[in-house]
């Protein structure tokens, strides 16, 4: 658990490599990287709650959506500057998430997963019928202020966000709180029996998850410049987030990043052969096989491969 110099060296190497990326790849590829960066942020957010504590959220777009819609409405309808609307969006996500999840924290296992799914469907339907003059109803909103212009700047913005989020979460999870959250995932009763208030820990995990989701959602919407309810509160979106975290390696910080990049590029390389939604056929198939083969994800596969290599030399 200790921090060692080579941890920081690895982070530094990763950041330098990623920041040099625009020199190495085309603008088109860079746009793919941007999506991978955002997906990594969402996957980390999911993992903080579900990967660690075992409380699976099937409705994570609910949180992302609150963040995205808050800043979209504030900037579009009330001309609030982005610098102000994003922090507000993050706070609103945390508060709204808290109000909603507080009673749900009593609920265990599969039922928790179901209630999050219900929350997502609820907000999807509400957004379309309640105050469409604010939310843009079924069609959503476009022409929102964007933070950057061009692929390179967009890439730097998304990369910075992803690296900051990943690094902070990584640092945090290396402290005892990370151990405590994972302990909940392994045996919640025994955590209680060790004198720790499980509800408080779950609440912390949820708030952290909401913070990252709100942040990611807000930046994402100001990268895209538009927002549409069907694209956001979509089961395919939930699927992509969860699969990224799991395929990469749940309960690690690097895992969701690996997963996000792996899946985004897999999806992109399938595009020439399968242009539409049928891409998910191969994509999901690969994800399913990988998950069945190693539920702990690519991170664990690499780990095991590495220890084999070391054992041989």
């Amino acid at each position: 658990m200790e921090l060692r110099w080579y941890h920081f060296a690895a982070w530094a190497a990763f950041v330098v490599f990623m920041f040099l990326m625009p020199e190495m790849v085309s603008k088109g590829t860079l746009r793919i990287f941007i999506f991978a960066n955002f997906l990594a942020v969402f996957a980390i957010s999911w993992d903080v709650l579900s990967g660690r504590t075992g409380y699976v959220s099937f409705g994570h777009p609910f949180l992302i959506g609150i963040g995205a819609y808050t800043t979209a409405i504030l900037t579009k309808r009330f001309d609030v500057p982005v610098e102000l609307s994003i922090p507000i969006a993050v706070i609103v996500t945390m508060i709204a998430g808290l109000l909603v999840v507080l009673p749900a924290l009593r609920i265990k296992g599969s039922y928790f997963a179901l209630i999050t799914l219900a929350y997502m469907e609820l907000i999807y339907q509400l957004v379309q019928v309640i105050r469409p003059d604010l939310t843009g109803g079924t069609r959503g909103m476009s022409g929102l202020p964007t933070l950057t212009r061009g692929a390179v700047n967009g890439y730097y913005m998304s990369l910075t966000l992803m690296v900051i989020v990943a690094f902070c979460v990584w640092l945090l999870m290396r402290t005892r709180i990370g151990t405590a959250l994972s302990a909940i995932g392994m045996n919640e009763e025994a955590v209680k029996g060790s004198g720790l208030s499980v509800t408080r820990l779950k609440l912390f995990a949820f708030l952290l998850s909401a913070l990252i989701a709100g942040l990611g959602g807000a930046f994402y919407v100001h990268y895209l410049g538009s927002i549409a309810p069907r694209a956001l509160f979509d089961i395919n979106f939930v699927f992509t987030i969860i699969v990224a975290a799991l395929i990469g390696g749940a309960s690690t910080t690097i895992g969701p990043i690996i997963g996000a990049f792996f899946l985004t590029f897999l999806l992109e390389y399938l595009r020439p052969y399968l242009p539409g939604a049928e891409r998910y056929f191969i994509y999901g198939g690969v994800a399913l096989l990988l998950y069945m083969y190693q539920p702990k994800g690519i991170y664990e596969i690499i780990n095991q491969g590495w220890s084999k290599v070391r054992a041989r030399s």
Partner: protein
Amino acid sequence: MTQILIQGLLLSGLYALIAMGFTLIFSVGRILNLAYGAYLLIGGYTYFYFAQTLGMPKIAGVLLAAILGCTMGILKFKLLVKPLKGDHVAVEISSLILAVVLQAGVVLMFGDSSKILLPIIPGVERIAGAAVPYSNLFAAVASWVILIALYFFVRKTHTGRAMQAVSMDPKGAAISGIDADRINMITWGISGTLGAVAGVFFASYTQLYPGMWVAPLIIAVAVVIVGGIGSIIGTLIVAHIIGFMEVMTSAFIAPELRGVMTMALIIGVLILRPKGLFGREEL
């Protein structure tokens, strides 16, 4: 008023059928089969392909849909649920992945656009000012017949009672010499069949499109949550509560809000009575 009564009864019958396959798996195997909606999807498209594209008799279309649904249920149990034995989270997550894969498979074969299913029985009957398509009437009657048959199957046959036993106490059932794997497999088969047949009816109620599996899944989830785990009667009652609530919301408040009420009901019940309105009952 009569109109609401009739529409409510028709819709609720269909919902009961949709929810039943999901409840069965949940009560016997304690597994939330998030791929359940995909059975409806496959059922609807199978019927569409055989009965409408190939022009086979409609009854053959329904039967083929049922057979395919049954096969899928059994395959899912053998290839996915059994290898992941015991890990409910893993089963749920891989079920969700499977559902998305199946949806993409449908897009691959039939395209993205929605299809209109021709009514199983053409024609409309007017009852007390309400237009009731024969198709919907047939769907509701067929749902009831299937549900009553299922009830007697579970209560009266040897296999049905073994299912009850596994549902109540898997270990006890195993000690009494019940092959839980076989019972589980049968349950998955029945669940797949029910889902696929419900899919044919559901698609003729609404439309056939690749994303159509989410709505019935949510309904099934709602019924299970509100009704509590796995009682056939409870499922029936709750399907009627939800069906009537949706019809009344559409009629008196706004059609767009019908789904909102269902969600609100799920959330409210989960928070106030996490074990459901009817609590834990046997099958």
